[in-house]
């Protein structure tokens, strides 16, 4: 059990490509930290530096209180699940799981006991004599997990472990990994490109892009208070709607004038937005903060306008709707009782208290 600390960690490849730029973060002991971002954002490189599979160009990595920059992977006391599982094809499931213990000269009885314990925990007792070739994707995944568990390492590292599974299995394994973490209480650093996985699994989430850390916080905090436009757009499904527009003053109030509509800005935002009056700005509204006017809860702010219902996707519990206003399409999650009808116009309200505004140049969040 140990914390993992990254201090100004940078990775520059031989061809001068900067894959990871000056990342600092702390994963507390027993914490489940998820690194998430689009492909090429440097999340896997970061994980591999923690594992010792990549050299660290600059900065320091601590596991526990020890700097591990010059410690070989084998001596870092970590375990890792790879994207392709990397099970040893020539060994049985048992041998795959026992390999690390044998290398550490663990007594035989203890190896047997620990492998059986792990197999029991993962429900793979009957598979111990099989070779990886004879296993299904989900079973391989479990073996890969088992190989980590038996080692009782300080830290688990996961490199997109669920990306090779089908959707249903992925949801199931997600829950199992969460349960496993609750039971084992080992520090986990988990890499994924899937923001749903990140949101559901992580105690805290690191959002990365182009080698930079954009935000490091709890899922709820990241969802509600994204630091910039990228984080706002990346986290959340369906993703947030962005509107380009201008801030205008009218009757002492600030109004956001978009393409074909305008909405009032809540008073509490005005202070922070006053420098942007008359300027181009981006408004972000999450799909669940869009309402059909009669069902709106935020009647205080006359933020309603007419939009055309383009597409309705009834999902049962909710309707996902594409609206068209001006030349802009945006997405909303409505309750069935709000009765969207394809092709018709609808009075739409934005819950502006939950809106975000982004600076067009820096893309940073203003409110």
């Amino acid at each position, binding site marked *: 059990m140990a914390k993992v600390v990254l201090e100004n960690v940078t990775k520059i490849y031989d061809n001068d490509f900067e894959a990871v730029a000056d990342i600092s973060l702390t994963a507390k002991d027993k914490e489940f930290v998820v690194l998430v971002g689009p492909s090429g954002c440097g999340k896997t490189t970061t994980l591999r530096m923690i*594992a010792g599979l990549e050299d660290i160009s600059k900065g320091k990595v601590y596991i526990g209180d020890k700097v591990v920059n010059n410690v070989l992977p084998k001596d870092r006391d970590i375990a890792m699940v790879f994207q392709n599982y990397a099970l040893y094809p020539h060994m049985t499931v048992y041998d795959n799981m026992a*390999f*690390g213990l044998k290398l550490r000269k663990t007594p035989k009885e203890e190896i047997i006991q620990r492998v059986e314990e792990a197999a029991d925990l993962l429900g793979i007792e009957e598979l111990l004599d099989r070779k990886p070739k004879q296993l299904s994707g989900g079973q391989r995944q479990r073996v890969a997990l088992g190989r980590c568990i038996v080692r009782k390492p300080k830290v688990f590292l996961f490199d997109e472990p669920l990306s090779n599974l089908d959707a249903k299995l992925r949801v199931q394994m997600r829950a199992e990994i969460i349960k496993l973490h609750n039971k084992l209480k080992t520090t986990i650093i988990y890499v994924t490109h899937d923001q749903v996985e990140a949101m559901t699994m992580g105690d805290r989430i690191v959002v990365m892009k182009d080698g930079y850390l954009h935000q490091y916080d709890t899922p709820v905090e990241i969802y509600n208070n994204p630091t910039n436009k990228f984080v706002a757009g990346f986290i959340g499904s369906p993703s947030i709607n962005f509107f380009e527009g201008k801030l205008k003053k009218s009757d002492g109030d600030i109004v956001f004038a978009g393409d074909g509509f305008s909405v009032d800005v809540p008073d509490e935002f005005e202070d922070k937005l006053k420098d942007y009056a008359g300027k181009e700005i981006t408004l972000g509204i999450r799909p669940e903060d869009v309402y059909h006017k009669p069902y709106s809860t935020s009647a205080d702010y006359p933020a309603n306008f007419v939009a055309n219902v383009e597409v309705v996707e009834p999902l049962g519990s909710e309707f996902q709707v594409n609206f068209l206003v001006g030349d802009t399409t945006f997405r909303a999650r409505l309750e069935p009782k709000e009765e969207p009808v394809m092709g018709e116009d609808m009075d739409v309200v934005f819950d502006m208290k939950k809106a975000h505004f982004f600076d067009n140049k820096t893309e940073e969040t203003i409110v």
Partner: protein
Amino acid sequence: MRHKTKPFHYIIIYAIVLFFVAISVYPVLRVITISLRPGDNLLTRSLRIIPEDATFENYIKLFTNEPFLLWVRNSVLVTITVTIIGVVLASMAGYAFSRHKFPGRKLGLHSLLITQMFPATMLLLPLYIMISKLGLINSFLGLIIMYSATALPFCIWLMKGYYDTIPPSLEEAANVDGASKFTAFYKVILPLAAPALVIAALFSFMTAWNEYIIAAQVLWYEDMFTIPLGLKSFQGNMTTEWGLYAAGAIVISIPVVALFLFLSKWLVSGLTLGSVKE
């Protein structure tokens, strides 16, 4: 190709197969026939595979009158050493070429390829000079070195190509599991490369077992001959002892054919790219 063949196709298929099998096997059967004939009775046009007067006379003579057993010993000694050197060195060098980008890597790989374009027999003269200066004429060591150097480039390429198909995440998993670079190579990668190792071994084996032109330059005394060189000495004089030669040819071929049949299931997979799938 994988469709189920209809019964009446079988007749055609087997007719074709038998024709070609006959063509490929007949020349070999012919050697057996000659080896079983008494004396040097090559001069017959009988098509019988087993002659009427079949006899093991030639084989008996081969193993009793000639220094044949000595040649077998020499061949086995040289061949096994070359095979071990070829497999061990190629498995290591191929791994370095596959997994590491080091300066001179491309040059190294290309040079290996170029040595393959040079007729092995043409290295004879420079090698002969080198070997004689090193005082290795009439020694097995000289021959072993020459054969190993001839077999190595192909084996290195073969191993490198095979390692390329093994995902590097396997070594990484082993490293994380607690294995050093060498342990990961030895315990994880090498067992997976078994099919390629088999081919490398077979290739080294055949290089050393079959060769006689280089051997003829290096080994001068009859009791140091390898089998192919000894066989050649049968046909050196005016009167070739064909029966003896044929018997010797059969004996020299048996280990290779046996090895080949034994390893045949590895053969195709060893040459298949991308064969290690998890």
